[in-house]
């Protein structure tokens, strides 16, 4: 069976791909529902959805690294970063104090039962999805030191 699966996947990969951000609502830190498709739809604005968790060290490193350049990024580009916490109820309560403690400038959303993460077939975090005009334009699976520069170049090219 698995020998059949692999070629099928590559066919799918070349033929189709997820173009739109799923129509899913999750909560923000003010406990309000936010629809990730409809509420991030300003024309030509770039939305960077960055999936993270309070226990994920590379995720925090990435968001810390972007924070240092964030003023420059948002000045040069019409962009906004939305940090989507995939923490479940074990660690979700740590999101709010951590975000403020680290003084992050990002909008935060809570994907508590990982509905959005699953709909985007995200296996491991950090994982970044770049959306413009409700279309997925760029995906980064993972993070290593310095990869924020690669992301910035990709955003500039959009």
């Amino acid at each position, binding site marked *: 069976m698995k020998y059949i699966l692999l070629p099928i996947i590559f066919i799918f990969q070349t033929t189709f791909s997820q173009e739109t951000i799923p129509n899913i609502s999750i909560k923000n830190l003010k406990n309000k529902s936010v629809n990730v498709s409809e509420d991030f739809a300003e024309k030509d604005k770039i939305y960077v959805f960055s999936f993270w968790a309070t226990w994920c060290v590379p995720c925090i490193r990435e968001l810390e690294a972007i924070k240092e350049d964030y003023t420059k990024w948002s000045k040069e580009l019409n962009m906004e970063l939305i940090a989507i916490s995939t923490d479940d109820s074990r660690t979700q309560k740590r999101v709010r104090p951590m975000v403020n403690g680290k003084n992050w400038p990002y909008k935060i959303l809570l994907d508590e039962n990982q509905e959005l993460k699953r709909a985007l*077939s995200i296996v491991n975090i950090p994982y970044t999805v770049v959306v413009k005009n409700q279309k997925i334009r760029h*995906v980064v699976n993972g993070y290593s030191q310095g990869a924020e520069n690669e992301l910035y170049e990709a955003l500039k090219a959009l």
Partner: protein
Amino acid sequence: MKYFLLLFLCFSFALIAQNENEEESKKKDYGNLYGGFETNSQLYLEDSGLNFEQPDEPFRSNNYLYLNYNYKNWTAGVQIESYEPNALLNYNPQFKGTDLGIYYLDYKDSKFQATLGHFYEQFGSGILLRAWEDRALGINSAIRGGRIKYSPNSNINLTGLYGKQRSGFGVTNGDIYGFDADIFLGDWLNLYEKNKDLSIGLSYVGRYEPLAFENPNFDELTNAFSFRFDFISNSFYLSGEASYKDEDGVVDSLGNLSNEFVEPGNAFQLNFGYSSLNYGIDITLRRVENMRVLSEREPKTYPNSFGDLNSSLDFLDGILNFVPALTKQHHSQLSNINVYQSLNGVSFVDPELMSAGETGGQIDFFYTFPKDSTIGGKYGTNISINLASWYNLPGNYTFNPPNYDVNFLGIGNKFFQDYSIEVTKKITEDWRIGASYIDQFMDYRFIDGRDPVNADIIVADATYNFTETQSVRLELEKMWSTANRKDWIGGTLEYNLNENYSFYVWDIYNYGSDKPEERVHYLNLGGSYRKGRYRIAVNYGRQRGGLVCVGGVCRFVPESSGFTLSLNTSF
């Protein structure tokens, strides 16, 4: 059912293809096909140093293909799972062969959503119901049945569901009924303009399972209710959840359901905190009594990959609710040796070790010393402190016949404690350092019968950037421990060649064990390649036996040794 859905999928594709022929010239919406693929394969190797024998089928592989098709308001999807020639060692043996793991059909518009087939769901914090997936842990507790969600306006969300919980490629015995309401009061009470918010929630979960007893002392339908609220006022927040579960037979340590030991369950959780620019403090208190909710009362027993008998609960199979341990999730190797799992059920192992739940809490504190301050330096300094302690419920316990009468307030024996402080700092443009200290206590007598342990752990790490994308990271750690395998030492070296390639080698060494055969190294080396939507990783080395934790949950795994290949992508 699953064949019906497959047929439906084929039919949809055929229909779309037909439309395409008819209206070739018109630009139209053909829908969207999307999904993902993940494979984790391992070749197990004989390892006399670990006393690990190569299994009969040394190559094992877990594969998942997730396919969804969306057209306007409709979405249909399947997840094909293939455990060939066998699931990875230490996975739930109910995952066998290749089959449809998940299939569903979903309709969604702005107010209404209906799902047929498998779905995931969580009510509140999950204390009554959480259906979810974690492939790394081998958990898929999706519910197979039907669900309706209705939001008449943006202030009310209602959910109703019925189904059976997934177990392996089948389902467990109990019929699950659920209802949940989320009500946001901010608009009605004009709280938003005062920068406040209030919401409340109500849940009901029922499980019906016929009983084999002639004169059962409790109902075949077990009802559970919960109420929650969430209040925010500027930088302050407060939330709480209270839950109650009907009387139900208690399952003993051998997995047998009792008709005499019958108890209700309850849980209370309170969370509050204050957080503002540069700092945040958060406090959670929780008391849980007999609050394990199973989708089938009696756990199943089946042989694992080594032929030993395991309970389905060992694989977190058939558990309908989610009561996570509220402790800090550490990230270094040694700090994950003494890992606590919430003791939320009734456990009567012997007359000295009886518990009916747990009570305790944790405090989190985060602070950033600002840039250009004495401690902050040029780039600022981050500090985080976590204090968590969990105890048995105090009260009177009798072993034979089993019974307990516990107090609502107060604490019993300490189960677990974890106090930690972590500091991270960027010193120069190229250097970043971090250090942490952890003080742990764990009473293993209540968990697996071993001696209680006091442990101290120190971790230090440094990252140096050669160029913008090339860097090296070194982490050193040491654990002093009073019992079990005693002292450990460890180190990790990670090298990022560029944004695509990264390599690592790490080792932990149990040099302090009293038993010479346990004084072994667990050396691992590997690397990963990532590009766009792809990530491929390889690892060669030894797996330490014990709890493996992902996100909020841990599962026991035996020692093993071998070569691992993982790949995942989405499309």
